[in-house]
């Protein structure tokens, strides 16, 4: 069935976006209506992670470069947001090094989150100008070094970040629905970007860097744009995360977070938005199950529990198995496309990488 009206065409154009949003909405509604408060918290955390993973997709999916540094931008966004929303009194006690304006004022969390994302984006833009000149693998190592330098900077910068202790007193404003709407915004952003001329040019460089350069694509510039945009969303996710936990420690933004979010993207399929969403949903469930198993469950008379860190080990093994047996992820790097077409054409379209 070919859509005939202009509306039909538009629906078909943004079909992956519609189906992913509706799917996500269903997941949220179902979990919200059946789960208790703890489940609802896991849901919020999962949705915030989804924003991070979508942000990662914007860069990794389109550029083909692996970044190990994005959790650094999440941290920058998280702290930058907290600086704005915390009660001035608390700021005076914990982080007295802030500029006078921030010490005296606070912003609404939504504005603060957006500004937090912007600050992360600026950090990404500046560092990206250096990193993105490197070749693929060296750039990946560069992002890792960048991440470690942000991490060690924030760990020592105690008058702004409370250093090795926790920054407490952040208002808790991130509900599951807030996180959901940020997911939708991030998905729209990722979708629009990947279909824009910028996204197209960057993907051309992913497939063949030399040819893209020959065709006049400024590969470094395109990478920086994508790096910056992805850091914007990841930074906002950081802001949400701080306002979900109500406190921040630098250690939250370390290798485990990097690993979990990167696994979600890879398991779903690095090169498609659908992959980012599917991977996050599937692995979030797996993590919850393994965490439950770590706490122990009873099987008849005996209660069994897995040792600590089982969730992490399990996750690592899942990722390795996916890399070995299905390196293009669950979605095989394809988007969920318009299903109402003649059979032959459908296979053609669904194989198109996005």
């Amino acid at each position, binding site marked *: 069935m070919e859509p005939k009206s202009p509306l039909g065409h538009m629906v078909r154009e943004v079909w992956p976006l519609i189906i992913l949003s509706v799917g996500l909405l269903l997941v949220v509604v179902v979990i919200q209506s059946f789960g208790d408060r703890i489940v609802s918290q896991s849901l919020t955390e999962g949705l915030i992670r989804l924003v991070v993973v979508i942000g990662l997709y914007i860069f990794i999916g389109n550029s*083909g*470069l*692996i970044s*190990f540094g994005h959790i650094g931008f999440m941290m920058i966004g998280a702290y930058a947001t907290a600086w704005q929303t915390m009660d001035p009194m608390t700021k005076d006690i914990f982080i007295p090094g802030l500029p006078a304006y921030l010490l005296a004022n606070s912003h609404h969390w939504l504005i603060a989150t957006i500004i937090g994302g912007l600050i992360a984006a600026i950090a990404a833009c500046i*560092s990206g100008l*250096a*990193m993105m*000149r*490197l*070749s*693929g*693998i*060296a750039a*990946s*190592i*560069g992002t*890792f*070094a*960048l991440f*470690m*330098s942000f991490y*060690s*900077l924030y760990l*020592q*910068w105690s008058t702004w970040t409370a250093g090795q202790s926790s920054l407490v007193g952040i208002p808790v404003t991130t509900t599951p629905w807030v996180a959901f709407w940020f997911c939708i915004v991030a998905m729209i952003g990722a979708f629009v970007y990947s279909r824009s001329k910028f996204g197209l040019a960057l993907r051309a460089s992913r497939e063949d860097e030399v040819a893209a350069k020959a065709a006049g694509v400024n590969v470094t510039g395109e990478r920086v744009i994508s790096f910056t945009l992805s850091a914007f969303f990841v930074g906002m996710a950081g802001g949400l995360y701080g306002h979900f936990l109500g406190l921040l420690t630098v250690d939250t933004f370390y*290798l*485990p977070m990097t*690993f979990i979010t*990167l*696994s979600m993207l*890879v398991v779903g399929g690095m090169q498609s938005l659908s992959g980012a969403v599917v991977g996050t949903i599937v692995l979030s469930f797996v993590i919850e199950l393994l965490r439950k198993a770590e706490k122990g469950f009873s099987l008849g008379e005996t209660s069994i529990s897995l*040792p*600590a*860190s*089982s969730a*992490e*080990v399990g*996750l*690592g*093994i899942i*990722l*390795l198995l996916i*890399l*070995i047996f299905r*390196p293009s992820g669950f979605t095989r790097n394809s988007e969920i496309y318009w299903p109402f077409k003649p059979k032959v054409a459908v296979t053609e379209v669904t194989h198109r990488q996005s």
Partner: protein
Amino acid sequence: MAFALQVLMNALSLGSLYALAALGIGLLFGVLKLINFAHGDFITVGAYALIVPSAATQATLLIGDFHPLILIPCIVVVVVILALIAEFLVFRPLRNASPATLMIGSFALGFVIQNILIMIYGGRPKAVGIWSDLSLGVELMPGVEVPKLQLIIIGVTLVLMVVLVLFLTKTKYGVHMRAAAEDFRMARMLGIEANRVIMLAVAISGMLAAAVSMLFVVQTGILDFRMGVSLMLFAFIATVIGGMGSLVGAVVGGFAVGAVSILLQTFLPSEMRVFRDVFVFAIVIFILLVRPQGLVMSRASRERV
């Protein structure tokens, strides 16, 4: 003069550790085009192998209590076996994958190793004292005293580098390894067994990791499941600024990173010293801006396509 010599020794000994770790990473990159994110965790495992596996806060020495002549081979064997297991279970199944996939694979492997260590030994750092008399000073010249350990680190590094160079240039398998690193397909067409060369490279990389674990743990006296990660990071940086795929570059880069760290440590005002690593990274980024291809150019630096 005495002060300069002291700083030089500090820089050389730190640079030695980085250079050894960078060599282990560079060797695998050469042959497998693999950036081994698990290399740091190989180092960590080598250090943890010294003690009895338990989650107790107090570490009890196991291999660490043996005579050095037994201890050293034991640790080397442990790390080499671990590296070979990694090759069989992870690297070999990913042999034909893209460099990016391989890199994520080794990242996952490192993460799994770290968490298995937490499972077995617990997540808290533990103190271990082995060969603590090595940290006693030796008088190099009147007024200049350096820990014996520094001299040992520099000495061991020099010896290992000479042995590695001799192996690569004077032995049949070394020449094969260099040929494979430059053009793997051609080497195979001439009859060089791919798996044998790779296993050999993995084993040597494991030996270098074991050497680093022992030197490092004697120096710090602390076991921490993340101890290898920061060493590995500096080693990565060393390979990148030295020039990917060049072993000479890895060594040069290692010593350069070590020297920069020590110079900053020595000459930064004390309140800025905690930000040393941030400055190191800033300098590295600057070097990369000026020379994106690294300090030492190599023919094998192109990624396998």
